[in-house]
């Protein structure tokens, strides 16, 4: 039981716990907070995997921007506790089953395909951000430009959608 393994399990527990509480929390704000926990935990895992830049981006963008946006919207709409409506039960139980089946499938698949990706993650060697940037701006430059364009479109769309029509 080496130190990294312990850290991994702690973070994994955090992540799973956060996900569970995301499900079981009744209030959207609490769900959001638990999601933030998951994200921070994931960022930790990324660090453990040596993906420092991704970890930082994970926290800055996901934690610092997207989730803040969520919280902001929740506050703006003053969303309350989820109300129970009996329809929700109907979809529930098959859904539970399905989710378990899905997870089972994937997990089992990976568990059986140990031979394929047995190469382990060394926390030591940090993937240098320089290489990452080289990849993004050389090999992936067109996708990169596309995503920037996507962002622009998204911003415009958000503005158009959210603005109140002038009386």
């Amino acid at each position: 039981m080496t130190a990294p393994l312990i850290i991994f399990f702690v973070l994994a527990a955090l992540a799973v716990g956060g996900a569970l509480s995301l499900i079981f929390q009744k209030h959207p704000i609490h769900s959001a907070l638990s999601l933030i926990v998951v994200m921070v935990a994931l960022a930790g895992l990324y660090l453990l995997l040596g993906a420092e830049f991704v970890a930082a981006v994970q926290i800055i963008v996901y934690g610092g921007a997207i989730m803040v946006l969520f919280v902001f919207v929740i506050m703006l709409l003053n969303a309350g506790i989820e109300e129970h409506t009996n329809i929700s039960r109907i979809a529930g139980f098959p859904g539970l089953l399905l989710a378990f089946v899905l997870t089972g499938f994937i997990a089992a698949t990976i568990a059986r395909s140990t031979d394929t990706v047995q190469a382990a993650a060394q926390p030591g060697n940090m993937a240098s951000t320089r290489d990452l940037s080289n990849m993004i701006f050389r090999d992936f430059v067109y996708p990169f430009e596309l995503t920037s364009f996507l962002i622009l479109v998204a911003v415009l769309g958000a503005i158009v959608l959210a603005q109140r029509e002038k009386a």
Partner: protein
Amino acid sequence: MIPTNYYIVLSAILFGLGVLAFIFKRNIISIFMSIELMLNAVNLAFVAFSQAMHKLDGQVFVLFVIVVAAAEAAVGLAIIILTARNRQSLNVERVDLLKL
């Protein structure tokens, strides 16, 4: 020294939980958040593989996923605000205009 499978299984579990949340939550915003959770699970898998194969493509993809997620969040939340404004409710069961 952590086997990559641990990460993958973890991501699978997170993904499943995301699906559960996606199905169970009634609040549009929570559902939206569950989607984000699933995305994160996938990202974890990406990074784990990129580490295992000593290739950076996975991380690049994670960055793209994050960017797209941001865009999606912007638009989605705008839509949510609009819906809430029109329907006076965030409960998906109240938003059943899709019915024939």
